[in-house]
């Protein structure tokens, strides 16, 4: 089995603080409107009011989302200029900026809306797992930034062995076919019990 680097997200304890989003933005010098990692918020439920008292069945949770370097990445298939490729040595999904024509089809097909259009040069950009930091042997910016230590990374199969193979929680689009390279430990409200 080929190598596949992956993110680990202990989603149940994510407090939605955005430290990962900002650390990523700062690291990659991203302008407003572009974020390689974002916090997606989900909430629901309702109140019942009975006289003076309030009953709630509120739920809420966050999912910190970036490119998940899918095993069968749909962005690669739709890219007309073959700018997006999967690197064999570590499974990273990367964009060859020279070939990118900025058509945004990758954005449209990505369940996470991970690829970001850079208006400055008309190209797509996205999470590259902070390859430069990985080469230096340190964690991606988002992972080392997390104040709750809910983000991690490693070889997909090893993360799955350790934490299970959940890669989907309620609110996310169906990603069974594309096999995103992340392992989630879900929030209690993000799964059916």
């Amino acid at each position: 089995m080929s190598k596949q680097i992956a993110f680990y997200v202990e989603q149940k304890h994510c407090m939605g603080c955005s430290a990962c989003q900002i650390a990523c933005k700062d690291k990659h010098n991203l302008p407003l409107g572009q974020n390689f990692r974002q916090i997606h918020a989900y909430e629901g439920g309702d109140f019942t009011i009975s006289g003076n008292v309030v009953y709630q069945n509120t739920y809420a949770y966050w999912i910190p989302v970036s490119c998940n370097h899918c095993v069968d990445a749909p962005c690669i298939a739709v890219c007309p200029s073959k700018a997006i490729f999967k690197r064999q040595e570590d499974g990273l999904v990367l964009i060859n900026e020279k070939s990118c024509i900025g058509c945004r089809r990758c954005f449209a097909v990505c369940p996470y809306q991970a690829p970001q259009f850079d208006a400055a040069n008309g190209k797509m950009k996205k999470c590259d797992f902070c390859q430069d930091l990985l080469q230096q042997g340190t964690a991606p910016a988002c992972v080392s930034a997390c104040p709750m230590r809910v983000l991690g990374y490693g070889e997909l199969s090893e993360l799955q062995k350790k934490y299970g193979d959940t890669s989907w929680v309620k609110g996310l689009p169906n990603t069974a076919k594309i096999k995103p390279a992340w392992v989630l430990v879900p929030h209690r409200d993000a799964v059916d019990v």
Partner: protein
Amino acid sequence: MTDTTFQEETIIRTSGSHNCGGRCIVKAHVKDGRIVRITSDDERPDTDKRPQLRGCLRCRAYRSYLYHEDRLKYPMKRIGKRGEGLFERISWEEALDTIADHTKRIMAEYGPEAIYLSYATGNAGKTSEQVWMRRLLALYGGYLDYYGTYSSACTNAATPYTYGTVNSGSSREDWVNSKLIILMGFNPAATIHGTNTAYYLKKAKEAGAKIICIDPLYSDTAVALADQWIPIRPTTDSALLDAMAYVIITENLQDQVFLDTYCLGFDEDHMPEGIPAGNSYKSYILGTGTDQVPKTPAWAERSTGIPREIIIQLAREYALNKPGALIQGFGPQRHAYGEQPPRSGAALAAMTGNIGIKGGWASGCGSPCRKQYVGSIPINNPCKAAISMYMWPLAIQKGTELGKREGVRGVDKLSANIKLIFNLAGNCLINQHSDTNGTAELLGDENLAQFIVVSDHFLTSSAKFADILLPGDNFMEREDIVLPWSAGDYVLFMNKAVDTVYECRNGYDWIRDLAERLELTAEFTQGKTLEDWLRFIVDETRKENPGFPSYEEFKEKGVYDWEYEEPAIAFKEQIEDPRHHPFPTPSGKIEFFSSRLWELDKPAEVPAIPKYIPAWEGPEDPLRGTYPLQCIGHHTKRRVHSMFDNNDWMEEAEAQVFWISIYDAKKRGIKNGERVCIYNTRGKVILTAKVTPRIMPGVISIPQGGWWSPDKEGTDQRGCINTLTKYQPTPLAFANPQHTNLVEVAKLDQMEAEK
């Protein structure tokens, strides 16, 4: 050839020095004189014993603040009306000459009690502008001081009436020993109440603790960590705690031995001499005392909105799952009778015997019981007068009428009204104070406050009220030493990362130049540079801490950790060996009943035992007929108080919107994302609605810290909650009741139609 040489990236170790409950390691990556990236504690091992001090989004987004185009660049003088925000560039010489002239004149004419340094926390470093101005004015004859803080004045004032100290907090590392953790208005996910506080809660949860959040909001902490969210109406925390006490007493679940051994005033058998019968805490709870109202869960559900069965469940769980930690945040004490909840919480901690033990928590203020000594710049203010930090508007209007009954300390009566205000790195002059419209009117009268000096990074709402406005440096541009204010056994050195831009200056530099104009240079500086003073602080620190590193080593490492074998447990000695370690109260006991409060003789507002006192503009105020919604102002991740309101990265991370429940929004036909008007008799705010199930019906919340931005008609366009808050000091602490407001919310077309 140019003399520009290509620079490798260098990494400078520093820390934020704004008023944040966290204090983290910040590393500035500098290239060619500019910061190109900010990282945090990612090299030191991240261990259980010493978790990394990881910065949050605020400091990580600092580049977008540091290089903001709106940065104040030059000294300026006001050319329009006060508050209008019209200024003209002047030289530092002119600015300092003007400040010196007014200082001399006002000191000569009115004396030191007319000179006030307003509460300002934008720079919380050991050598901030505040510190230097205090030092200079103290040498020049003195200044009117303040006590208390806008964050925690009520609990700071009240907790000592129970425990004799505010330091009722154990180390957070001890939470892993708790079976149950109840967070009351405590949201460390957003209010960084000590670096890693939310992380310590996560560890406690992993160790098996059940976590219950009591909060009008389903807070970020609750989402990430709580097993149960109990929404509560603001200002009613003491009603809930009273009813819990009722359940515990009537079901005989209290730790009677603990109460008999360590406490005063729990029941009629343990009262101070000379107090009439019926005044004990137990008599109040059971309704056998003066008011004859049993504080039953049914009684409490009317005010709190919490169903009685949930109150019963909560009381039983807390009483039966020992050790348990009832942790109180500061939100519940920033209201009309905010002195009560801290003492009500401490009463529950005592009844359950959760004080002085591992896994327990004494409640009340919760400042850390373990503190380390770090040296300070010497300031010897010859003026002994001090007011509560919230009383300055009254001291401007009628200072000479204020005395001890109004909380004046050090003198019987003030001898002057405030005439000169230094507001250095702060936004409490208007934005973070109450009633912006009323305060603006007061500050607009130049016969009252005759001269106002402001130093800041941006033209904030407060800066607009300056007569002289000075551009300050920021934490990337200076050296300093900083401590965490709420928790953490460490101290940090801030190394300078980049040069100060334009004509921005460090506080020590310009206040030294002001000292020269007051002919106090030698006394003020003692011949020292800023670095000499930092060395002085380290030397003083080393005298008390033998293991403390040299200045050079501390500066290079950027951090010093005090290491301990065990977490500190508040009041451990008092509980284990009461004979030799009395509580620092007059009786030496935990005082349910305070004779000191009894003697104040204001039982309706300052009872001797903690009580639920229905708040004006609380849920039981008849004014709800007109203004049916309670409005609070929660802290958000995107600002430290009002700082970073203008940072675009933060707006992207979390836009400034107010929270309204799906229930109340539906009633009014308000949609998520719609701009609507929030109003009461004091003001109007136009703001976007977040329609959400995360706030209880009957309550809205405007995230505090938005910069007050009145349009021509005075309607605030940014969402400064203080446009709607009332200026009314609390009865004991003379503090800010920020979360005590009744408002109505209406669609904009409806407001238009009513005109």
